[in-house]
């Protein structure tokens, strides 16, 4: 429709486009398209990042990535974060939001408290939790000692390190999703709720058939944020475990950093980047196309 009108000579619209599109387009190409293209180009080389890449090895880097045990673990970990985000974090956020939209004494203060972890910088959060989890001096150790038990070093065992990170992820981000839901709930038409109450709906029915359905658009958005955020998780992992022990707690991004950047294997790292990009873009477009198509 818009395109049609443009062709028929809506000059105001055209002027707007000519004026406002180029800056955004230039910035986007310069800082998004170009680097993506470069990464794709580098991923074909065996290159240590110095000088210009010369040693073309075709798709070998991709082969190396897929053959890497640590990458498989990192990929699995990313899926785990998504699962925990969707199955634990979002329901928790939703439940709290429904409780805290009601105006009672302390509701605002509680909202603030739950939102605080989100404001905290990721690195700071990671450092704080590395102290909390410390088996000798940490908060956790103190709690264990209270019961006369020896505290485990959660971050030092490959079976507990990643679950420990997952806990921090949930702690850090549920407040953000809670706020999204609260905002949506506050914008909800109260008359619908009133009407349902007059019709004799129970509290459960009210939630199930009125409140949650009106939240669907927000839930879809929240899921989108949770998944994209999960795929990009990096800065909590670094201060907590740096991907260890035995590469058990890497995410794809921390894998990229550790195996690509710090080992001066820029070609290899670029291949990981391209794989991550393809996953993200497929998800983002797919989600927009199939799940968020109404909005």
């Amino acid at each position, binding site marked *: 429709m818009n395109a049609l009108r443009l062709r028929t000579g809506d000059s105001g619209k055209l002027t707007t486009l000519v004026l406002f599109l180029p800056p955004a387009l230039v910035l986007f190409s310069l800082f998004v398209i170009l680097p993506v293209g470069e990464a794709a180009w580098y991923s074909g080389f*065996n*290159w*240590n*990042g*110095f*000088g210009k890449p010369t040693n073309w090895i075709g798709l070998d880097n991709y082969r*190396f990535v897929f053959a890497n045990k640590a990458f498989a673990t990192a990929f699995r970990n990313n899926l785990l974060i998504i699962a925990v985000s969707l199955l634990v974090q979002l329901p928790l956020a939703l439940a709290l939001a429904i409780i805290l939209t009601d105006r009672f004494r302390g509701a605002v203060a509680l909202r603030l408290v739950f939102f605080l972890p989100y404001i905290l910088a990721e690195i700071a959060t990671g450092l704080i939790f590395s102290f909390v989890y410390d*088996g*000798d001096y940490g908060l956790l150790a103190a709690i264990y000692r209270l019961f006369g038990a*020896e505290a*485990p*070093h959660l*971050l*030092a*065992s*490959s079976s507990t*390190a990643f679950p420990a990170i997952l806990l921090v992820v949930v702690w850090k981000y549920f407040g953000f999703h809670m706020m999204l839901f609260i905002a949506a709930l506050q914008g909800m038409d109260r008359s619908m709720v009133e009407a349902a109450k007059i019709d004799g709906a129970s509290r459960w029915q009210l939630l199930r058939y009125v409140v949650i359905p009106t939240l669907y658009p927000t839930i879809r958005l929240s899921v989108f944020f949770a998944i994209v955020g999960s795929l990009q998780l990096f800065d909590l992992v670094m201060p907590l*475990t*740096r991907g*260890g*022990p*035995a*590469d058990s707690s890497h995410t794809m991004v921390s894998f990229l*950093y550790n195996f690509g*950047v*710090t*080992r*001066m*294997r820029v070609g290899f790292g670029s291949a990981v980047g391209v794989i991550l990009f393809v996953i993200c873009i497929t998800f983002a477009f797919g989600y927009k196309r199939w799940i968020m198509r109404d909005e």
Partner: protein
Amino acid sequence: MEHMFRTMVVAAALALSTGLAAAQATVRWLHIEANPAQVKIWEEVARDFEAKNPGVKVEMQYLENEAYKAKAPTLLQSRDRPHIIYSWAGGVLKAQVEAGVLEDITVQVAGFKDTLSPSAVAAFTIGGKIYGLPHTVSQVGFMANKELLAKAGVDAAKVLNWDDLLDAVRKLKASGITPIAVGGADKWPVHFYWTGLAGRIGGKAAFDAALKGDGGGFEGEVFQKSGELFKQLVDLQPFQNGFLGFKSQQAIGHFGDGKAAMILAISSFYHTQKVFAADKVGISDDKLAWINIPVVAGGKGEATDTLGGVNGWLITKGAPKEAVDFVKHFISPDVQKRLAGGNYLIPTVKGAETGLGSPFMRNIAQNIAASKYHQNFWDQDLGPSVGRVVNDATAELAGGTMTPRQVAKAIQDAFKQGN
């Protein structure tokens, strides 16, 4: 009269040269030294250099060890790169030279290099060209807490071969003492076990052969065996609880706090165990013992062979010539003797080791001097990519997630993959 005239000429020349010097730039010096006491001396050395060279400013920049390794490639290609950077020589240095980010300083240090230990200078010479100057060497071995050993009835002087060490670990465990502290999260402290043992089993010949790909390379017999011997130790569970989560500095502090009897250490931990101890005092000299990496029965390595570092300063491409001057000043006999006197390092300037204050450090200096084969840290020598795989795999062996055979294979695979 003539005398006065000469003085005036000299004065004028001096004024002219300092006038020229005054127009000059800043030397950016990037270091990774975490010990505040030593950094303080370095700062004084820098201020002293500035006083002697008016117009030159020396700017010190600090990065933590692991952070530095991660950032170096990007840092070196930036236009604002530091002029002087820290180096462990080896494969990383080679990669940097090939990339053309370093300055060839062969001509500028022509006479100066003769004042230094030739083997240390050789570590910074690639293809006949010198790219940096070494300021210290170090040795890897066990640092031990005599008091804790005594409680378990272990005498540090009698731990000579690998079985002695295993025996000591058993006795310590039986007495309820944590035998060994290790920084498993940083991984490189763990690779000292595997590489130290490989050196004892196969000596220089085995390492050289593996580099050429002979005898199965790093998958060969020697390296399988070093994994098996290390596993004997690992199976005794000698490390502190949660050792895979400990960074090196935390592990050193653990030892300094007297919570573990031993630590496989770089000789420079002599100081850092004090710095990272909770009380900042650490283990006092009279309680500190040094145990060379135990020999292995039937091993081909000489007992005098040493594993350790050669550390120095590289000059980056485009650095002002004052950067070289400063490094020369930093590695002058006066400064080296001063640092040796404080036991901060084993100096590279010939004769400066006489300045070493403590018997502990003098012993290290003697070990290195007596060594005919001083092997650089493998993770540095093999380059950033293969070296890290050595660290990964050996840490997994310590964590029980890889077998000796898998470790050897992983390293050989990485070596074959190259880069």
